[in-house]
């Protein structure tokens, strides 16, 4: 038998395998390139970039919990110019598709950052972060109000011809409503989930461990929640979905694909093992071989519900 085809499409981005890395867990590209061959990734999603440089939150910004971690980095980034100068030259040397995660504090800023990237070479797609739980303005406020969501997606859509991925917040009652809103607003794809709002208290000092008081939970702990969200969103929309949340091994990625995701992203597990995404891609391939499936597409959304 010939090798199964791992290729998948997200909007107009064609990926050689369905495994990307999640924004904020892979830096801007060069950092982990010392340790693994980043060219083997399905796609590389960089940390959130805004129009102006942003300091992020005070420290501590991260705390490990059983089954994951809670972070409140607060979207620290060098701004559009800093990003273009420091990281784009490296990213342009890659053949792997580069997706830039973008965010703003206001509707206008979302529009501006999308417009700025319209002129940037070497960026295959934009991932619109409307779901960061760790900043006071912007972020999750856009992702948990359906009307705001549609407005921001619609606005960004008008500014960009790149593949537009909208990253949804899990912190809503009915994800299907938000998935539909993003689709209606012109998204080419959806990604979910972002981290879930959470808090850790140090019982010795009785202070929140994070300087930001609350943060976002990621890692294996959230995986069954993420699978449910991907499943619900996939039923609601026609555009492709990128599933993420707690992937460590191929099995967890395969669950997302079966639930309806066309691609997946590895986040927190990069910290455990920077080679996770490559291992997961290999594992998906081995699974397809074992299951005699000719391609990833034969797996996507095939969850059998009902008897």
């Amino acid at each position, binding site marked *: 038998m010939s090798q199964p085809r791992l290729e998948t499409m997200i909007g107009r981005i064609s990926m050689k395998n369905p495994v990307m890395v999640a924004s*904020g*867990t*892979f*830096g801007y590209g060069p*950092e*982990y390139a*010392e*340790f*693994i061959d980043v060219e083997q990734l399905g796609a590389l999603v960089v*940390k959130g970039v805004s129009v102006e440089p942003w*300091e*992020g939150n*005070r*420290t*501590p*910004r*991260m*705390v*490990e919990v*059983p*089954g*994951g*971690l809670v*972070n409140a*980095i607060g979207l*620290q980034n060098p701004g559009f110019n800093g990003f273009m100068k420091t990281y784009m030259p490296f990213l342009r040397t890659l053949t792997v598709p580069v997706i830039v995660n973008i965010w703003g504090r206001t509707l206008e800023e979302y529009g501006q950052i999308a417009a700025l990237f319209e002129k940037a070479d070497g960026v295959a797609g934009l991932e619109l972060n409307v779901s960061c739980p760790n900043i006071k303005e912007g972020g999750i406020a856009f992702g948990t109000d359906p009307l705001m969501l549609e407005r921001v997606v619609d606005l960004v859509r008008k500014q960009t011809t790149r593949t537009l991925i909208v990253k949804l917040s899990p912190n809503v009652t009915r994800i299907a409503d938000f998935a539909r809103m993003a689709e209606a607003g012109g998204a080419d794809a959806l990604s979910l989930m972002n981290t879930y709002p959470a808090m850790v208290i140090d019982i010795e000092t009785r202070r929140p461990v994070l*300087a930001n008081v609350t943060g976002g939970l990621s*890692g*294996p702990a959230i995986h069954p929640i993420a699978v449910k969200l991907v499943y619900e969103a996939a039923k609601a929309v026609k555009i492709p979905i990128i599933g993420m949340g707690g992937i460590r091994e191929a099995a967890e990625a395969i669950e997302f694909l079966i639930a309806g995701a066309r691609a997946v992203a590895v986040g*927190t*597990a*990069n*910290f*455990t*093992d*920077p*080679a996770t995404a490559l291992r997961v891609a290999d594992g998906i391939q081995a699974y397809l071989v074992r299951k005699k499936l000719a391609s990833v597409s034969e797996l996507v959304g095939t969850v059998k519900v009902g008897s």
Partner: protein
Amino acid sequence: MEHGTTGRLEEARVLGQDPVGEDYRRLVLHVPGIAAAALPGQFVHLRVPGLDDRVLRRPFSIYRVKGDELLLLYKTVGTGTRAMNALKAGDALSVMGPLGRGFPLDRPDSVPLLVGGGYGAAPLSFLAERLAGPGVVFLGGRRAADVLCLDDFKRLGWEAKIATEDGSLGEKGLVTGVLDRWLDARPAGAPAGEIYACGPDGLLKALAGRAKDRGLTAWLSMDRHMGCGAGVCLACVIRVKRPDGNGGEIWARVCKEGPVFESRELVWEGAAS
């Protein structure tokens, strides 16, 4: 001045470990690539096996290098280090390293003054081995058992000055006191000392003060909780002065721009956590 090297992801084999006093252990790893590239003050980031419900690696300074072997000196303080106690010869574990920027090795005109608290002595031992000639090492700890690596320094012919809080070894008190008296006793005109230190934040902050007051250069190895260990996650950041020198502050990643910083770069208020 670059004191870092390119890191790699390597599968290490445990060669063994043995207790060092009550609370500390020396772990010996066979990990040729990292051992060859390691520089004093750099660290490794370990995936502790068996910690199924933990997602982060654990950072440890490089204590010594012997050929293909890398030695760590660690204190058992929590989940990860407790699990490390169970490592035995033959076990495999994933190591990232060498990481970060270590101590400068190219400053020959000054007497190296090494100041270590607790396991902070470990990277200084490695540093002493790689420095051109011997200097003076100042070691402190709560009690005698917290004064580490003394034999290493003696073997290298270093003069060692000790202080313990309970007086069980060396002078009773803080290691900064011993340093102060040593500096005060220095004949005028003697070559300037340069401080290289690793230890708890309180010690490093005190040394930064000394360095400023006495016009000395001090290289401080900072200890911050880490996520990725590779400059990716921005969890380990501390406040430093803008390199352009016009008064502003920016974040620096302890795992990447550090862990060793020149004390004048650091902004203590923002960094205290």
